[in-house]
């Protein structure tokens, strides 16, 4: 990517542990990879780590891409080469080499690089165009874990989460966690109302998408001089073309069949991917879209606008004899509001485990430029004849690999840390986000805030959790001992007797969430333990509560933790009580432990969102 890593505070000259970064292997479960991209050059990289057991099937690997397999309903002989572009994009965002002077027709130009350019990639192609099936996913997890990856990047999701043992990703990532492998996943693209956050298991990192301070803007200038709209147009400026409305009111290809709009800018009120206007010969198009924060790439000059802006254009068209407009090429502008969560990013609450806050954090997922495949046009429209080595796309798919790379970065400094310790480091050091700029539910929208890889390298304290802790949580969620003994392979009883069952809130998670009934008083306790991974000698952390407000009371006991050695673990309890008067509201707070240098921030959210 050409901007996001700088925006996140991980510049090209960031402090690195290069020898161990080269030992980190990231498994990409995606659409494969385009091996000839300069982002995947192995110049200067040594051979794969000795522990690597992976393979390259129907693919020529190098010292950057050290493994590649493909899965489609058990068939043999398939190629892991990326025919869709998505897998190359995510892989280069994680571990692409530094490539100078790239861009998409000059847009978003700069030096492209991944978060951990020295890390290795292992490719598991499980998605074919836009289709990914459970059985292929689980086969890839099975192989990736046994091959010896250190992290798994999973930019895939469903519309709604499903129970853990009916979800290939939750199952696969659980077994990954057992072998010390963290899975970083997309939170989903269902927006505020289109579904709920996915990939919600507490042993996976669920990543929301946010903006960077680079906003890509293309202008539509009407004949009356008024300027409207913002989106990506990588075509040359389209000058003063006539504006036209579709005869049938729709720009879908079937509605436009048999009509010609040669040389005109077609105004599309009901959305379009550009295929209809392109087939109808339009010179350009203006499309109403409810995601105005994203710069989609279209197969013809295009501006994306809101419904209100469309109404404004219609007013101009209706009162003008020969309405015309010009579509300008896209320019990058500075967005002082960034980071804001993307309009499409799925939000909580977590429908499977309401006591576990998901998404965990947010990372850049809007207008990300990264490697592409030459086998698919940049617009994704196969009528389009524009191909490029780098493309701009958006999604929680793009946010996920930023978090994966940050996890790899942390792992390169702390190779022995458990998946939960790495997750904790990323979550407790995230930069808080502004609920005013991100409406819809505070932490339910952005989790702990924006990823901050440099701070995550040295978090001071971490919340650790191991297999036994997750099993206790699963007991609390109603899974039985027989199931859990099979899952873990343990002979001992997995769940305590009924009366002793704990709650999901007891899991040593770095954030705290509680769903309250409207108008009812509640008191909830979150027992927690933190492990000292900061100063080697004596260090003292004190807790403060940030932002609880009048509706809830937050107490921490004890408020002082004195550590005498590294990896010492000390416990405390957070008690939250109060009442929220009505439904669909939330109150946020945070417990912040500090030794005077480091800040270990654990967000708390109490909500009445159903």
């Amino acid at each position, binding site marked *: 990517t050409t901007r996001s890593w700088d925006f996140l505070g991980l510049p090209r000259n960031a402090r690195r542990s290069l020898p161990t970064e080269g030992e980190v292997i990231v498994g990409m479960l995606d659409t494969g990879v385009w091996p000839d991209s300069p982002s995947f050059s192995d110049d200067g990289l040594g051979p794969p780590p000795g522990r690597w057991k992976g393979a390259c099937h129907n693919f020529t690997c190098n010292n950057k891409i050290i493994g590649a397999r493909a899965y489609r309903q*058990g068939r043999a002989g398939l190629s892991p080469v990326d025919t869709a572009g998505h897998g190359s994009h995510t892989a280069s965002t994680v571990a692409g080499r530094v490539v100078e002077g790239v861009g998409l027709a000059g847009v978003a130009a700069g030096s492209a690089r991944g978060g951990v350019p020295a890390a290795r990639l292992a490719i598991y192609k499980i998605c074919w165009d836009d289709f990914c099936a459970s059985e292929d996913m689980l086969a890839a997890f099975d192989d990736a874990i046994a091959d010896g990856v250190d992290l798994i990047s999973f930019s895939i999701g469903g519309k709604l989460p499903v129970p853990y043992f009916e979800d290939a990703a939750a199952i696969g990532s659980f077994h990954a966690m057992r072998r010390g492998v963290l899975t970083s996943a*997309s939170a989903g693209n269902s927006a505020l109302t289109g579904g709920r956050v996915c990939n919600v298991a507490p042993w996976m990192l669920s990543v929301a998408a946010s903006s960077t301070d680079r906003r890509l803007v293309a202008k539509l200038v009407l004949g009356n001089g008024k300027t409207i709209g913002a989106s990506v147009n990588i075509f040359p400026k389209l000058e003063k073309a006539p504006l036209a409305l579709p005869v049938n009111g729709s720009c879908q290809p079937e509605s436009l069949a048999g009509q010609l709009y040669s040389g005109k800018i077609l105004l599309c009120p009901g959305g379009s991917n550009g295929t209809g206007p392109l087939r109808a010969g339009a010179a350009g198009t203006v499309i109403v879209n409810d995601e105005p924060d994203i710069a989609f790439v279209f197969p013809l000059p295009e501006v994306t606008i809101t419904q209100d802006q469309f109404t404004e254009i219609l007013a101009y068209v209706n009162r003008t004899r020969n309405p015309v407009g010009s579509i300008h090429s896209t320019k990058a502008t500075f967005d002082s509001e960034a980071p804001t969560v993307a309009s499409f990013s799925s939000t909580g609450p977590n429908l499977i485990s309401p006591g576990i806050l998901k998404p965990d954090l947010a990372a850049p997922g809007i207008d990300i430029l990264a490697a592409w495949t030459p086998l698919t046009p940049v617009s994704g429209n196969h009528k389009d004849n524009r191909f490029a080595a780098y493309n701009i796309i958006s999604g929680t*798919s793009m946010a996920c690999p930023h978090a994966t790379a940050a996890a790899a970065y942390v792992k390169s400094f702390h190779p022995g840390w458990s998946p939960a310790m790495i997750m904790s480091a990323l979550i407790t050091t995230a930069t808080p986000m502004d609920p005013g700029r991100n409406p819809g539910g505070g932490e339910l929208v952005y989790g702990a805030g924006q990823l901050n890889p440099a701070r995550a390298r040295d978090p001071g304290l971490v919340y650790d959790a191991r297999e036994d802790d997750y099993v206790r949580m699963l007991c609390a969620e109603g899974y039985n001992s027989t199931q859990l003994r099979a899952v873990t392979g343990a002979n001992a009883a997995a769940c305590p007797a009924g009366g002793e069952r704990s709650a999901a809130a007891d899991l040593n998670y770095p954030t705290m969430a509680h769903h309250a009934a409207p108008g009812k008083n509640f008191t909830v306790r979150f027992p927690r333990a933190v492990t000292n991974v900061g100063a080697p000698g004596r260090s003292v952390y004190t807790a403060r509560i940030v932002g609880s407000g009048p509706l809830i009371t937050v107490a921490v006991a004890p408020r002082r933790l004195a550590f005498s050695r590294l990896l010492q673990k000390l416990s405390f309890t957070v008690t939250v009580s109060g009442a929220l008067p009505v439904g669909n509201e939330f109150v946020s707070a945070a417990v912040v432990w500090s030794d005077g240098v480091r800040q270990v921030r654990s967000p708390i959210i109490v909500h009445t969102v159903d």
Partner: protein
Amino acid sequence: SSDGDEKQVYIVYMGHQHEPSESADGFSAAEAAHHKLLNQILDDSSSALDRIVYSYRRSINGFAARLTEQERQKLSTMEGVVSVFPSRTYQLQ
């Protein structure tokens, strides 16, 4: 389908892999166990060999197979089976 004869891919999840097998070509012990389990619930005219799509045998224990609803129900009650769930389609995000 309503008559229960239509087959679809289900994942039969059996938890932890006790006998990780690196055998890429041969028929591993884990695969043999999966075939044995499935053959127990299939009628004489069908074989696990024709039904199994994947045997998960390296880190995870389980298999994916084309099953009818009745076969799914029978497998759900077998010892060692954690869950049997239908293959779902997921999307790139």
